[in-house]
């Protein structure tokens, strides 16, 4: 199921080995439970995803990277569409830079280190090392092929020469956890510089991009609040999301569920990104994601019946179907939650 074009509303399966290779950290937790229960991963093909595929196929790689922002109300399947796009691009052989949830980088961080590279920035060794580990699993091939173009000095004794494969940078970051965030920064810079040449296409997939411009819940040791610029990971990611490089595309998702200090009814880009974020991301292609259409609802219902997920006797009747449709309001997340106990 590589290029699903006119199969709108149908589910297509991803083989389990590919799931482990392509998405070590990307899928929502409920979806991972579904994979474990049904022994297969099935994603529904929806219209926004098909639009994105047509844009990506017809994009000219000599021009600067185009930015796509997927937005929609809570629980309408934005993260799933992002995962679909990531899978599509990895099938085609692109280098995928997948950040599962940028909100994880701006809240609940246990260790903040002062950065050795620049004095006023703060490092996050835990999150950086976790991300590097997952990046290594998903893109091993590219890490062996691409070479560094400058010499990087990590500390008093370790340094990476010119021309060494990028895998060494990643191993360096994993071995020395203190300099993990710097390793991430180096990686992103190298990839950006080398994407001009056209030897590979780059896809930057960021979920919850509004975390990069909002506020953080983290505090420094003297209890003063940290703004996102002071975090190295956020700073480097912002440079990636700028469209001053060519040879790929940037697909981002807005997310209200993990966002900090934003009301729960906000879902438009203007509200969630704030003024700074909106100006920074300014020329972008918005892609709205609606709730399920009647056809999509039917297909989802049929899938649940077929996999014996809806066990209640009354759930198979017309009345039960109408009731599910009404109670969930065709919202994918509500339907999933309702169909759980039934």
């Amino acid at each position, binding site marked *: 199921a590589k290029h699903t074009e006119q199969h709108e509303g149908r589910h297509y399966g991803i083989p389990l080995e590919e799931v482990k290779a392509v998405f070590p950290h990307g899928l929502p937790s409920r979806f991972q439970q579904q994979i474990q229960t049904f022994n297969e991963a099935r994603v529904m093909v929806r219209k926004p995803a098909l639009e994105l595929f047509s844009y990506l196929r017809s994009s000219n790689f000599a021009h600067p990277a185009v930015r796509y922002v997927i937005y929609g109300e809570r629980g309408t399947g934005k993260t799933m569409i992002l995962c679909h796009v990531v899978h599509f691009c990895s099938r085609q052989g692109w280098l995928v830079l997948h950040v599962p949830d940028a909100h994880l980088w701006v809240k609940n961080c246990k260790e903040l280190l002062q950065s050795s590279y620049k004095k006023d920035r703060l490092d996050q060794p835990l999150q950086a090392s976790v991300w590097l580990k997952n990046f290594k699993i998903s893109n091993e091939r590219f890490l062996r092929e691409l070479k560094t173009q400058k010499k990087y000095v990590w500390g008093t004794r370790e340094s990476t020469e010119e021309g060494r494969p990028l895998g060494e940078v990643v191993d360096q970051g994993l071995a020395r956890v203190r300099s993990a965030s710097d390793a991430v920064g180096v990686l992103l810079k190298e990839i950006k510089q080398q994407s001009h040449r056209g030897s590979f296409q780059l896809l930057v997939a960021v979920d919850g991009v509004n975390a990069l411009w909002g506020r953080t819940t983290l505090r420094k040791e003297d209890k003063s609040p940290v703004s996102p610029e002071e975090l190295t990971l956020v700073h480097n990611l912002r440079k990636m999301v700028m469209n001053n490089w060519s040879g790929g595309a940037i697909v981002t998702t807005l997310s209200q569920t993990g966002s900090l200090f934003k009301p729960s009814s906000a879902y438009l880009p203007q509200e969630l990104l704030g003024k700074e974020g909106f100006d920074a991301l300014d020329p972008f292609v918005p892609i709205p994601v609606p709730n399920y259409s009647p056809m999509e609802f039917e297909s989802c219902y049929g899938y649940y019946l077929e996999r014996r*997920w809806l066990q209640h006797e009354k759930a198979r009747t017309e009345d039960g179907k109408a009731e599910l449709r009404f109670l969930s309001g065709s919202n994918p997340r509500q339907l999933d939650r309702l169909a759980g106990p039934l």
Partner: protein
Amino acid sequence: PRLMQVRWSRYNPSYMEPEVNKEFYRKPLEELTEEEREKVELKAVRPIKAAPPNLSSSVFSDPMVSKFTNMMMRDGNKVLARSLMTQTLETIKRKQLEKYHKAPENEKETIECNPYVIFHQALKNCQPIIGLTNITKGGKTYQVPVPLKDNRKRFLAMKWMITECRENKHRRTMMPEKLSQELLLAFNNEGPVIKRKHSLHKMAEANRAYAHFRWG
């Protein structure tokens, strides 16, 4: 034991209960039996009581499940109790489905996946048949074996299930997980709740000599 009624309602006796079942209203007049036709005629004339909040016309509602959630509720936190109940049913379903997919072909039909069926069967297996009551005769109180009413049996089964899940678990296990484990064990007639039922039966059998105290 119970002689004075404690719960009573302020409604006039002419008020009738509300009918929630949608199927009842879809049947045309000819198919109804005699009693149902009288009831329909009465409904046109008599006033009807207000429907209580836990009564729903949804196809998926179950009186036993709502009773169980009410018993699990603490400090009036129905939201939490209901979410725990839904999570329990979901974990039961997931466990059974995983077993189903791993089982060989001939065993696939014996594995029951419907969480409601498992819930009802487990509670039925936990219900005791006779119970013990305290009867005072000649200054001493004796534990006398006595038959139990249906409501009392259901109540005891649910109560034992909930107390057992609340007390005998490791500090970090969540309630839905523990409850689903207990329900699956009770479904197969194993587990601590069934043991408690059997010990009650044994006590009743041991005190058989006092059975005639029931009648004075």
